[in-house]
């Protein structure tokens, strides 16, 4: 396998024998704590039990009925702090039963079952009786797909409006291929498309009142799940700096056909990534894989305060990334033609607790220094576009321009307009967006009955 293939393809998942062996280790707990740990109610205890008792199609049905993106979640979920965290098999006691001292690999089993359904051509959903109600879904990321699927399963006429050329949202443009590849995404999208959903790509719902207008254009309800695609930056006027990328642009370039160009930008260069979350981890690890000479992770707090998952952090360290902790980026240094040359940093120390419950980094006066860097990727969070509230002027938003909803229903302040995913939560997990879509779909059905 070439270096490029390795970058573009996920590692193999479990096979049938391995998955059954893993299901065999399950204690089949009475109260299924793993199921309680799933934000999207994918019911792992049920599909593992079904697999254990050779009811394989039933296991696939459990996943697909409860989580239309069960494959993506199986791959991308930080399972160690969701379902697997609750697993009794890894109960940390001195009395660890033999073979039960680590959690069941629930994500791996889930991924296997979904892949197995493709391999065997298992179709779970029957074609429903068509209904007359029309629903518009804005955004084809996890939240939009989930809501659309939930409604389409029952015959509602669903149209998804997607701003980008291809559907998938963050699943297509926001993750690296070796974690979640195109082949997998296309398969999972096939399952969604089979429900009869209409996809309208290259169709951003932007401009004054654009979202609310959908209700006047014949849609009975609208679900807003556009995600967050504007990057936060430490230098708002730095757009023209050559070699400075946002994580959004960097990661989507690796996905949408600009791979070779981006690879050239990185190969043999000194790359610094700013941020401490999972997206930053994707950026640094991919930079290593693309052949960067040195990869630095710049984070203003300490290692244990990084929001990235522990295994991601360790993988990055193992991959040879230099962690530059307790350093606050200040500015960029450029050379001729606005070419990036370095990153100005100041050392920090940890002070008192801040609002997030973590110790606040405080700059150490006089400790400024410059790190030589050819490329800097900012992975310090995504935000709503500044002008986005104009697209739905009657909808209440908060100070960060995130849409306010009732968490039980996804209802916004405008009747018929629902919202979920990152545009409501801020940066969140795929599985949480899936749940938002399910919740909103249920509420939309209720709303349409009235």
């Amino acid at each position, binding site marked *: 396998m070439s270096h490029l293939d390795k970058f573009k393809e996920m590692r193999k998942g479990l096979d049938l024998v391995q998955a059954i*062996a893993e299901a*065999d280790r399950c*204690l*089949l*707990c*009475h*109260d299924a704590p793993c199921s309680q740990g799933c934000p999207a109610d994918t019911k792992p205890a049920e599909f593992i039990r079904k697999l254990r008792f050779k009811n394989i199609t039933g296991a696939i049905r459990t996943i697909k009925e409860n989580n239309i993106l069960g494959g993506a979640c199986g791959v991308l979920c930080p399972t160690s702090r969701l379902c697997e965290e609750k697993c*009794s098999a890894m109960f940390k006691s001195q009395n660890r039963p033999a073979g039960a001292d680590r959690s069941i690999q629930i994500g791996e089993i889930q991924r296997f079952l979904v892949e197995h359904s493709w391999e065997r051509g298992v179709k779970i959903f029957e074609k429903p009786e068509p209904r007359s109600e029309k629903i518009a879904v804005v955004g084809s990321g996890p939240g939009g797909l989930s809501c659309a699927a939930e409604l389409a399963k029952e015959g509602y006429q669903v149209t998804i409006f997607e701003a980008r050329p291809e559907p998938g949202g963050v699943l297509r443009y926001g993750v690296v291929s070796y974690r979640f590849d195109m082949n997998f995404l296309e398969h999972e999208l096939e399952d969604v498309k089979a429900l009869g959903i209409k996809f309208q790509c290259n169709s951003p719902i932007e401009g004054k009142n654009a979202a609310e207008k959908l209700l006047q254009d014949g849609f009975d309800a609208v679900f807003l799940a556009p995600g967050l695609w504007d990057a936060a930056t430490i230098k708002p006027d730095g757009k023209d700096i050559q070699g400075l990328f946002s994580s959004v642009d960097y990661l989507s370039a690796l996905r949408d056909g600009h791979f070779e160009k981006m690879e050239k930008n990185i190969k043999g260069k000194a790359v610094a990534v700013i941020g401490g979350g999972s997206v930053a981890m994707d950026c640094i690890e991919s930079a290593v894989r693309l052949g960067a000479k040195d990869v630095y992770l710049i984070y203003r707090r300490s290692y244990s305060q990084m929001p990235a998952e522990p295994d991601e952090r360790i993988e990055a360290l193992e991959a040879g990334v230099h962690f530059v902790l307790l350093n606050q980026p200040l500015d960029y240094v450029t050379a001729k033609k606005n070419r990036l040359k370095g990153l100005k940093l100041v050392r920090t120390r940890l002070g008192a607790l801040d609002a997030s419950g973590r110790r606040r980094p405080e700059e150490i006066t006089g400790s400024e220094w410059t790190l030589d860097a050819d490329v800097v990727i900012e992975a310090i969070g995504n935000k709503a576009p500044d002008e986005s509230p104009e697209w739905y002027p009657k909808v209440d938003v908060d100070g960060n321009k995130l849409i306010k909803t009732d968490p039980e229903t996804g209802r916004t302040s405008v009747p018929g307009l629902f919202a979920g995913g990152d545009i409501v939560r801020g940066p969140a997990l795929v599985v949480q967006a899936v749940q938002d879509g399910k919740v909103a779909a249920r509420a939309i059905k209720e709303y349409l009955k009235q």
Partner: protein
Amino acid sequence: MVNNVDLSIDFCGVQFKNPFLLSSSPVSNSAEMVARSFDAGWSGVVFKTLNSDRLPIVHPSPRMHCVDYGSKKEMAVQNVEMISDRPLKHNLTEFLYLKKNYPDHPIIASIMGFFTDEWVYLAKAAEDNGADMLELNFSCPHMCIEGAGHKVGQAFQLLEGFTAAVKEVVSIPVIAKMTPNITDMNEPAMYAKKGGADAISAINTVRGISSVGLDDFVPTPNVFGKGAISGTSGPAVRPIGLNFIASMAQNDQLNLPLSGIGGIETWIDALEYMLLGASTIQVTSGIMHYGYRIVDDMIEGLSDYMIERGVGQISDLVGKALPNLHETEAFDLERQGIAQYDMDKCIGCGQCYIVCQDAAGQAIEWDAESRRPNLIEDKCLSCMLCKFVCPVPDLISHKEMPKEWKRQETAVMDSSLEKDIKYEPFTKEGPNECVI
């Protein structure tokens, strides 16, 4: 330390350096194989059943299947293999090779014929070429021909007659190998004894069906579209083997040395057969699964057990459990107990709760808050199902309750219906045994 104990055993006057033998099967098909097994530590062999070359022996293909349990492989093995398909001359030459190179490893020749002359012929041939003992195969459950294999094992006069005929022409000891496909093995064993058998070996494979193809509806092994009831072996049949060995060992009239067979893989399995009366044991399925090397752990494990308990001679352990084996009517029903929980060890999976609810006395309450079971002692049946499913060793144990303790009766759902039942108490006197 291992040298301090003596694993050697006398079986019908033949000396074995340990009680672990290959049984007559694919694992003892050739001298090349048997030699390697001797090198690995097996003390002797019951060579694959000889045939007289009168009828061609062709094995079906495929000849085996297996039964898995979850992801655990080969809980049982299913086979439709016949007796040796090798020419008698080849097999006898193999005997000479083994006797020449492994003179202190006894060879037991397994033989099977259809009529007296054939049995006699094979017996003589085996003895004349160095066999130390004979094992008469009265028990193969899937030989294709009526009047052979287990059919003989079920026709007791034939069994006695063939044994007597063989005994008449050979001077080496003769073992009769029994089929488990009967209710009471003592009956055929006594016929074998009357015919002059010096020992009994049991069990041969149990008649069974390993599985059925869900697409083609053919039982397995699927021999080109046909299945058959055939021989099941492996760990799944061990309780059946132990039953037959123990019941023959308890039979004072039989009083013959026993060779235990059926699902033996570890020294513990072997020891259990010995504690119930076997003085040698034979293995096939365990080797089919793991190879000859398992004898290493059988020897070392049994030796260490004996050292720990100060047992010098393996023969001292033979039949040790028999005094404790009774009919169920001997149980002291006055003494009752319950399950007892060491809750410090509990991990909260709730499997005990599920089985107690659905298969026992509903004696467990589930505390959803703490994720812990709470035993209502007075309802506990002491079935111990909870202990079996509990993933934590030694969390649940059985404890005796005081004499005055009484278990709650199972509650009647709606006793107001009692007035409607059609019922007379049974009052007739009668014997406590079955009569028509």
